[in-house]
């Protein structure tokens, strides 16, 4: 029996993509995750521009995770200039990123993926789901508030600067949201239990997860790249082990880990981070994981919602910690001189590792740059994942296959507008 399954325009994902699956005589003959989001060529525009514009330009790649872009670029450039940022700035940047994790995770958990488990078309399509959606909006709002205090607004904040921030917040302003954060933290722990209890498919398989790992902390802005299959590389070496390739049905490049004879897909994002770094979580959250009966490592990507819920709770935990310890630094940034050079930096965007490489000339202008967003790293993996699911479900109706594939894709929280920004290097 032949089946042809097509989704022109995936709903509840960020950006424009579709899927085409063809099954002939019990064999999968085509499986394309199509990205037709138009490319925007920002990397080319950055050539010749001042280093200081990199943060504002790359932020516009993605409205959902602009902070990630600002963080990867600012750190890469600081590395080139040999700037060592001070502890308070490190902490504030982590806080800013926590804001984005909360915002992005809450949006995905409660408003985008959540409805899948309730069989509804949107988060507001049923009365029963409304309280859950409201809760999500509540979390999301707090994430946004953190970003607004630190950066003026949640989408494309304006305060990040090479060497620190343009201006650091008053302690008063941060303390003011502490009670709300503390309450939300409690609720987010409950949220882990809720996520763990959702009905999942049984599409578990043996995959390779890659994330940053840091000696002291759950990775956000720093660390080195590791995987469960032995990969362990410093940030600057990571790209060497990666192969990017173009497929004719997509405006986004794919990426895989170069192995002896092949290029193998890998997974980045909350599942990878949690699987590889759960030892760095505070006890309270570890307990919540155990009490919810979550078995680590997570091997089913649909359970990304669990990993996201854990990380959201962690982001609240961290935000509270940082705010409690915060003292406004004397100067919002440190002085520096520009230098020529090249550097790679990776940070953990909500969807996974975001790689930036810059080459800067004597005058502080960008000579070349490479950006590898998490979603483009996941594209190959998404296809493998669906392939894996199909293999065991070839007998299912086209309708079911379509729905389930859509759900699998959605569980990655793919950021398609990001994914078309990847430079071939």
């Amino acid at each position, binding site marked *: 029996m032949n089946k042809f399954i097509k989704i022109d*325009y*995936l*709903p*509840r994902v*960020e*950006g*424009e993509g579709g899927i085409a699956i063809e099954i002939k005589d019990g064999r999968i003959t085509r499986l394309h995750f199509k990205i037709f989001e*138009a*490319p*925007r*060529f*920002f*990397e*080319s*525009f950055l*050539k010749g*521009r*001042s280093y200081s514009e990199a943060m*504002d*330009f790359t932020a*516009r*790649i*993605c*409205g*959902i995770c*602009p902070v990630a872009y600002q963080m990867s670029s600012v750190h890469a450039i600081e590395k080139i200039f040999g700037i060592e940022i001070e502890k308070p700035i490190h902490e504030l940047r982590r806080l800013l990123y926590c804001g984005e994790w909360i915002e992005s995770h809450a*949006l995905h958990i409660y*408003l*985008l993926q959540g409805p899948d488990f309730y069989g509804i*078309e*949107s*988060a*507001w*399509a049923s009365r029963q789901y409304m309280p859950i959606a*409201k809760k999500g*909006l*509540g979390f*999301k*709002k707090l994430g*946004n508030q953190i970003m607004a205090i630190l*950066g*003026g*607004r*949640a*989408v*494309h904040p*304006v*305060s990040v*600067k090479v060497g620190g921030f*343009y*201006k650091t917040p008053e302690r008063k302003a941060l303390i003011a949201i502490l009670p709300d954060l503390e309450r939300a933290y409690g609720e987010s722990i409950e949220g882990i239990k809720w996520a763990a209890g959702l009905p999942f498919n049984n599409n578990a398989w043996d995959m390779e997860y890659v994330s940053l790992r840091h000696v002291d902390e759950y990775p956000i802005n720093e660390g080195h790249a590791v995987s469960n299959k032995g990969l362990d590389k410093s940030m600057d070496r990571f790209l060497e082990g990666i192969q990017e*390739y*173009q497929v*004719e049905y997509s*405006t986004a*490049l794919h990426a895989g880990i170069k192995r002896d004879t092949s290029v193998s897909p890998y997974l980045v994002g909350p599942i990878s981070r949690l699987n590889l770094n759960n030892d760095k979580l505070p006890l309270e959250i570890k307990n919540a994981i155990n009490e919810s009966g979550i078995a680590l490592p997570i091997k089913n990507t649909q359970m990304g919602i669990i990993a996201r819920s854990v990380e959201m709770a962690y982001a609240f935990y961290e935000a509270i910690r940082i705010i409690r310890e915060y003292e406004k630094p004397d100067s919002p940034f440190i002085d520096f001189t520009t230098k020529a050079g090249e550097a790679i930096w990776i940070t953990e965007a909500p969807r996974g590792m975001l790689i930036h490489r810059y080459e800067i000339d004597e005058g502080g202008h960008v000579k070349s740059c490479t950006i590898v967003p998490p979603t483009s790293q996941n594209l190959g993996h998404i296809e493998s994942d669906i392939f894996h699911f199909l293999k065991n479900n070839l007998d299912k109706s086209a309708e079911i296959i379509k729905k389930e594939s859509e759900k699998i894709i959605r569980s990655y929280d793919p950021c398609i*507008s990001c994914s078309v920004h*990847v*430079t*071939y290097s």
Partner: protein
Amino acid sequence: MKRPRIGVFKFTSCDGCQLSIMNLEEKFLDLLELFDIAYFRETTDRPLTGHFDISIVEGSISTAWQKNDIVDIRERSRYLITIGACATAGGLQALRNWGSITDYKNYIYPSPVIINVLSTSTPISEHVYVDYELWGCPINEKAFSETLISFLIGKKPGIPIYSLCMECKRMGLPCILVSKSEPCLGPVTRAGCGALCPYFQKPCYGCFGPKEDANIESLLKQFQNMGLTQKECILLLDKMNTYAYRKAKIERS
């Protein structure tokens, strides 16, 4: 009374403006009381059908198929509102309008030929009639809800078209152009963001696009007096609203 039907559409963009709609947070639920969100791909599964009382369009036109789609959307809509720098001015991606698309493609793709895009990125208003343009990169969510309210109750949205300086001064921020010789675009930029950058002691970089009757020539001359080169001055304009600023600069000179 029937709730007006709303469609949210996306062209070439970062989704940030759509996210700003979600960032209305609990007010988003108020929005649902008043409007029927009949199409919003990023958040719901409902298919594209029928006509819309208000269509909200994010993103610029940068591919051939988008040119057709926008005409279709226009035909389905009573009012069409564009949101954000991409849709109202072509976005940051409109920087390609001043260069060679082939170079850009070559820089990014191993097989550039299969990338099918237009050589320009243009605002929606260059393709179809737009009833109202909401500026910003991203838009301000308050302005967005005010716009919808205005259409709902039948008035012109009262969103200012005057300079950012007005907003900056209302907030009591000392001018960084005057006190620090920072090249702030505030005097030629629309109010609407809440003077975020001046608040952070950072020169305005023009998220909200040119204000009405922007005297760009005169401001750039002042920047040159402050020591910027002519090229640096132009680069200041060449950001998310490059297309609109350059147009305003030409129109005024």
